[in-house]
């Protein structure tokens, strides 16, 4: 088949099908499933593992007799979809922690303000932070009248 290495993609016009060999060390199996799923409405799709770390995807034309160009285009579309799925899987993997964090915060916020019971259980014993400039002092603490005997 023009444009692809012969050992990776093959078009069989008589069988109205095309097959693609995917290296599963380059493309995760979830990407193969994702790309195959997209083609279920147009093709009959069969996966096989003819050897270790290789997945063979067979796309059989559903209706009518396809030309060689149509089958070639099918292979091209599948490989593009495969790359897209692999890339999306990679992005999802890298940003999973961020997504989970944002989701849990959103759900936590949606639960509303804490109840009196929640506040009673809350541990307020944390030591105060350092405040060398006295920014956190109230006006009374800072400028109020000093009690007799209190150092200035």
């Amino acid at each position, binding site marked *: 088949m023009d444009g692809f290495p012969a050992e990776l993609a093959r078009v069989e016009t008589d069988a109205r099908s095309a097959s693609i060999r995917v290296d599963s060390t380059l493309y995760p199996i979830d990407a193969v499933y994702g790309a195959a*799923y997209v083609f279920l409405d147009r093709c009959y799709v*069969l996966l*096989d593992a003819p050897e270790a770390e290789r997945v063979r995807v067979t796309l059989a034309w*559903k209706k009518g007799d396809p030309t060689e160009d149509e089958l070639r285009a099918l292979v091209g579309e599948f490989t593009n979809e495969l790359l897209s799925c692999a890339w999306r899987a990679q992005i999802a993997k890298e940003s999973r922690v961020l997504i989970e964090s944002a989701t849990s915060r959103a759900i936590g916020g949606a639960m509303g303000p804490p109840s009196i019971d929640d506040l009673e259980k809350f541990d307020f014993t944390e030591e105060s932070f350092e405040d060398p400039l006295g920014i956190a002092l109230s006006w009374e603490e800072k400028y109020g009248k000093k009690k007799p005997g209190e150092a200035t």
Partner: protein
Amino acid sequence: MTELRFHRDLYRQAAVDEAVKALASYATFSRADEATHFVVKIEAATPVRERRVAGEVSNFALGLTVNARGNARGKRR
């Protein structure tokens, strides 16, 4: 007769079983499972019908496998 071979590493047995069950009324099915594959043999009245039923079984099995994997992943999280 058409023989479909579903690799055990790629397809779930429940998905293959369900696919065969769903299309049982359109052809005659027989199973001859092997160590590495679920093997489904299909016989229908005409070659055209046989090809179509075989294709639909493979799509059905793949779709159910993909859905089951997605559900399993969702439960693990």
